[in-house]
């Protein structure tokens, strides 16, 4: 894994803290709202993995694209989709970023080029290939960032997509969020070779493993990767080693892993470790964190209020959005 970068500015540090806390607090509230049956269907929380989205997505340019999975709340938020419209979407309200049709697993936003929100494991990879192909064919300098879990690596589409990206030299940033489990299946039970970034190398793709619990490492790796993609016109693969603190979804009894293992990883909480480091370096004080927490809880409260106040789409509109022109 590439070594930790040395220094950052107070501003940068506070920004990361705020980004990660916004994801964390928003999702903690989502979990509660799920208990209250305000949010339904499947809900997959990103808690514990915030450093990945917070470290990568802000490095993207406005014209770049993002393709993500059903565990994409944090990515959507980092991409600049408002917390209001994200929560409204999870409620299924018209004001949601997908008009309420998608829900938690299908957040979309045209203005920020956020292409979802895909609930088929590995289903987003071919899409990212195509978006990048379109950019290349139109001589645009854009990059497509594609996020997926390590479970997706076992799917044939992963293999087909990586080969195409390398073969056609496409500007794709592959970000594998290796949180060690695919639902209840540990990586070692799904891959004969668990060193995932090595697989990317077998396609001739520049690839490395990154400490996904450390936002600084993630950010440095992302910046380097994006520079390579833009200059060398080749895809880059980053394996982010991270961990999901919560259950896979709200239905998961977590029979497959030890509490102790979870506790160990929680010691590496990306938020706690960053704020500790910043404090140790006398860059920030408790009140800085307090200020962020305050602002964040206000934002979350407002978002919940927004979602609550949102409207249900009239049932007469059921057949909308199937075809661009009605058949």
């Amino acid at each position: 894994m590439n070594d930790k970068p040395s220094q950052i500015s107070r501003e940068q540090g506070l920004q990361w803290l705020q980004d990660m806390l916004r994801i964390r607090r928003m999702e903690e509230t989502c979990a509660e709202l799920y208990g209250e049956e305000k949010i339904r269907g499947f809900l997959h929380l990103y808690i514990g993995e915030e450093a990945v989205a917070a470290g990568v997505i802000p490095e993207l340019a406005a014209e770049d694209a993002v393709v993500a999975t059903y565990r994409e709340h944090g990515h959507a938020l980092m991409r600049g989709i408002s917390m209001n419209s994200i929560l409204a979407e999870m409620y299924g309200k018209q004001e949601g970023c997908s008009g309420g049709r998608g829900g938690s697993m299908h957040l979309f936003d045209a203005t920020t080029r956020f292409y979802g929100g895909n609930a088929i494991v590995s289903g987003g990879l071919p899409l990212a290939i195509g978006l990048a192909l379109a950019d290349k064919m139109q001589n645009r300098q854009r990059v497509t960032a594609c996020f997926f879990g390590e479970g997706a690596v076992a799917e044939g589409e992963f293999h087909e997509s990586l080969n195409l990206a390398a073969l056609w030299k496409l500007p794709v940033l592959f970000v594998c969020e290796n949180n060690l489990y695919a639902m209840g299946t540990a990586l070692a039970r799904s891959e004969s070779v668990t060193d995932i970034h090595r697989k990317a190398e077998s396609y001739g793709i520049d690839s490395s493993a990154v400490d996904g619990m450390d936002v600084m490492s993630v950010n440095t790796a992302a910046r380097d990767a994006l520079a390579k993609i833009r200059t060398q016109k080749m895809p880059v693969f980053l394996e982010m080693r991270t961990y999901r603190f919560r259950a896979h979804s709200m239905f998961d009894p977590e029979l497959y892993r030890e509490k102790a293992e979870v506790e160990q990883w929680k010691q590496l909480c990306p938020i706690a470790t960053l704020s500790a480091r910043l404090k140790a370096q006398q860059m920030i004080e408790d009140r800085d964190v307090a200020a962020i927490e305050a602002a964040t809880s206000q934002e979350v409260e407002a978002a919940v209020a927004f979602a609550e106040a949102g409207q249900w789409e009239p049932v007469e509109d059921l057949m909308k959005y199937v075809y661009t022109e009605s058949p």
Partner: protein
Amino acid sequence: MKITYREAMRAALREALQRDERVFLMGEDVGRYGGCYAVSKGLLDEFGEERIRDTPLSESAFVGAGIGAALGGMRPIVEVMTVNFSLLCLDQIVNTAATLRHMSGGQFSVPVVLRMTTGAGRQLAAQHSHSLECWYAHVPGLRVIAPATLEDMRGMLRVALDDPDPVILFEHNALYNREGELNEDVTVAEIRRAAVRRAGSDISLITYGGNLVKALEAAEELAKSGLDAEVIDLRSLRPLDDETIMASVRKTRRAVLIDEGWNSGSLAAEIGMRISEQAFYDLDAPLARVCTAEVPIPYPSHLEQAALPQVATIVAKAREVLGKNV
């Protein structure tokens, strides 16, 4: 004995694993996780890793491996977590499992059982709410069955395993939590005949799987206004039991077909076409169907429910066919 449909399938799996060493269960998260719908919970401890085999997310390869293992003398039960993900292994099912016996001139049979949950209703949105039974029912070489009662959920697996050819077993996700009295006396001897779940004389409501409950409720609803509906549970979607279907229609002279697939190209269409071919002159009124609206399933409950077959819509259609419109 009162049990849930989930427990009924678990009991069926346990029995199958106990009575035949060649049987094993393979699929995503069937072991440590206990099954996506907790159906196989506990079986790993009882039967071990080899026979309760967690697979990577490689639908095409592990379904194909199930087919190969069947050729190799095993009796695999392959769980494709949901029919939605079966889109990734259709090639193995259609081009290998369904064709191998024929292409080899009868030399090889493929005794594999593929289990899939199907259906919508849980706000899982557009990619996780398909009902593609009609696709599978189109393919020669496959058998397709769908339990609708507790007894069938408990008994169909065994008959499927005894079948020398590939069997697709569709379990509607809405059934698992339902609880009921398991009638121990009922033993499922065959899986190819449809069943009359409610005898009636005025109209035939023909359905299967997760929608039988709705059809039966609709029948009760109709009874209140003196309309006597017969309810047919297809049980086998391929082959279809024309005999039972036509016998019912010849008696009632009217039919409403209920199916959670999208309207166009639904299994309901096939049933309707067969009735038009075989019992046309016995019909007193146009056929009607209650299927899912032609829209990817929306996330919000009110829109999802509006898209799916409902007791009220079945009742309304039946009344319309009976010329009893208010």
